[in-house]
């Protein structure tokens, strides 16, 4: 069936099988390969994207469910430069190694920092509870998000 989705600010119209997941639609149909699959059952966070500006698992949605929805991926966030400070902090702090979890981590961080206030380290870890990373051991990621949260608070 035909779906119309806004992806990274652009209207996209495609014919899809209902069983095609949103993550496969993004990766295969639109070649937005920055979003990854690690489990296809919502347990690892590698597939996180934004729907209506809120983090959701793209593996837990079918593309047909996104008909009429507004979706943003890591590519869109990068192009809009809204996570540039997070990307810089991650880079400086080496809060990524293989990079496979990174898009999901950035989407989660984006969602967390959209909330009011400066989260504590424990709150940051809590927000990351659904994001699996095998490489970093998480501390550098917490550090990077913490740095940005404080920077944003300082600059108002």
């Amino acid at each position: 069936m035909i779906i119309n989705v806004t992806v990274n600010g652009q209207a996209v119209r495609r014919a899809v099988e209902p069983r095609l997941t949103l993550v496969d639609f993004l990766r295969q149909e639109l070649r937005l390969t920055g979003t990854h699959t690690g489990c296809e059952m919502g347990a690892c966070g590698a597939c996180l994207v934004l729907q209506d500006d809120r983090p959701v698992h793209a593996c837990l949605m079918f593309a047909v469910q996104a008909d009429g929805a507004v979706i943003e991926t890591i590519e869109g966030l990068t192009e809009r430069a809204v996570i540039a400070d997070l990307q810089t902090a991650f880079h400086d702090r080496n809060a990524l190694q293989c990079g496979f979890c990174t898009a999901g981590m950035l989407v989660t961080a984006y969602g967390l920092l959209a909330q009011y206030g400066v989260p504590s380290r424990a709150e940051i870890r809590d927000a990351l509870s659904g994001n699996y990373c095998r490489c970093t051991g998480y501390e550098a990621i917490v550090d990077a998000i913490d740095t940005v949260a404080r920077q944003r608070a300082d600059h108002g």
Partner: protein
Amino acid sequence: MRLTPWRGNGPIMDNPPYIGRSVARPSAKRLLSGRGRYVTDVELPRMLHAAFARCPYAHARIVSIDTALARTMAGVRLIATGEELARICTPWIGTLDHFKGMKSPPQLPLPIDKAVWSGQAVVAVVADSRAEAEDAVEAVMIEFDELPAVVTADAARILDDNICFHTKLDTGDVDAIFATAAHVVSEEFRFGRHTPVTLEPRAIVADYDPSEQRLTVHHSTQTPYQFQDLYSRHYGIPEARVRVIAPDVGGSFGMKLHVYHEDMAVVGLSILLGRPVKFVADRTESFVSDIHARDHLVRARLALDAAGTILAMDVDDVTAIGAFSAYPRTSAVEGSQVIRLIGAPYRVRDYRAELTAVFQNKVQMSQYRAVGHPIACAVTERLVDLAAASVGLDPFEMRARNLIADDAYPCTSATGYRFEALSHQACLARLKQMMDYDRLRAEQATLRTQGIHRGIGIASFVEITNPSPAFYGVGGARISAQDGAVVMVTPAGDVRCLISVTEQGQGTETIIGQIVADQLGVTHDQVTIITGDTDTTPYGGATWACRGAGIGGETALQASRKLKRNVLDVAAAITQAQADDLDLRNGWIVDAATGRQRVALSEVARIAYFRSDTLPPGTQAQLTVAHHYAPEGYPFAFTNGIQGCHVELDAETGLVRILRLWVVEDCGRIINPLLVDEQIRGGVVQGLGAAFFEECHYSETGQLTNGSLAEYLVPMACEMPDIEISHIETPTRDTELGAKGCGEAGTAAASAAALNAVNDAMAPLGGRIARIPMTPARLLVAMGRV
């Protein structure tokens, strides 16, 4: 312990701009932007997708396969069974000659007669899409005749002819020593079977071009060179027409070093079809096919005298592997390292160990991060703590008395490991200070009176890095122990380096770039490092066993020095100076003594590439060099360290909160502290995962019962602590660079430190545990609460 000058060529550099600096990774920027290129992202024209029908039984004869219905389904292009692939692929046997007496049954990509583990791929379906392939898989009808399965170590051990490998070490006098020792402590250890759970699963795109009879494989692997050799030999394609490309790899930790049946099958499927075929193991498949590791039952004892000096150790290790030994690196290395690493940090002269690797009808087992070290360290350090308690010594004091003295080197362990120079005592002292140990103990005592049970545990360790050909080569494996680099100055005066070590996110490319930039006097961002393609990079050992920095780094260092010499020769001709009087700094050829700039590197390059007519006759500028380096000297560059773990045990629930973890690590000369520390942190968390969470559960019938991310518990952010790291640097003199490896150290000791910490917390409650993971149920039982 500060850096000391090297033999031969003097110090690396005075104040190197990059070596020793925490430089962010240039190649991380595109990963942060969603521009990584993993094999899972690869799409080729006319590419097809593979899925597999798998055996649900742990052991079963394949009676018949009916693919008639499956063949009619939409999008299906090929269905292949074991017979079809056996015609084009030779079998492999996962043994090495230096493991005497080792045996293993030959393996084919898909089995013909029987399946030997639950989850084994039996029939391959290739279709236009993965979904269609899975639809067709459901329509493949395989008749199995279930056979008795071997699923416990004890059952495996008593079977006739079920031993993969057996070996003994014996210094000779162990029984006599134990008979008369003042104290003997013993324990039976069980280690949960693990699976690596890389976030990017195994992924491969095999692309056979029949017009050129050329095979290109895009493979998520640590070692494209090994696979180039394997695909060539087993599929009978000349090595020159096999290309393996390892692009961005989403995590490996050793898992992606090994041959997998499906991966080999996919190469054959592409050959049969003459089209690219892609296979990405989904998470369910990953659990039942990625290598497992760490399944050991160790009975061990330690004898000590009345003063607390360790006299001898006696070990029996039974490791229950899969139904065959992994290929080409075997399933015996892990156990072999376990029995050789036990006791390694200590002055233990008398030692006996027996290793038995037995087959089971389970997933194959092989090298996974820190191979054997976590088990050896846990056995050793737990016994040392028990020994300390038996003579009334504090754990730090026990180790101060027994760790090899820092001035006792070189020396050889009772198991034959040769140590060049380690720093156990210095690390011990540093850890005690970092932890503020005395204050922690005082606080522990106070909190105990309030019913709060905290525990402190420490674990010393050594780690094998920079392996020589003695590791695999001597056994007949075509696994390279050397590396090669091609380094060149480009027309613009930048530098390119193609090198045979590989990148999986640990920062290999970054540190190679730092070394090259330092030697050639350019900025780091002027250096491009290229890895992971057998067509473009020299042949080499790639990345495993922490060899990237030590061996790869030395290769890059020596290659860069050669190139520098060539550059200075051309510059000397241009400036009419002596090459020996010149140096490369900040993009300029300068007078070495005064620093006066003579000619820009970019100018030398311009002349060499475009105006060779202006050079003195006979001057042939060589702005590209190729250089190989094979390690010599010590068979391994051992590193050492110590970890401390602080936990709080909820005695009513058995839940443990990990408060903090400390690491003192001596990995020789550190090229990039930021990257080293993050490797350590990642490794520690894997070790803590082992200590508290990870374990493959098998049913009585050999089914993996927790094969999903919801039930196999990998460590997540909320349960992991902040990790404090400090370094001591004892370089190796075997290389100019002096670097050793660090990638596995975090994992080597974290579970041991945690095991000791929890036992320390439980001690006043009468509990004792020697089994990981330390689940709440096991801890409650240990404490007698249930």
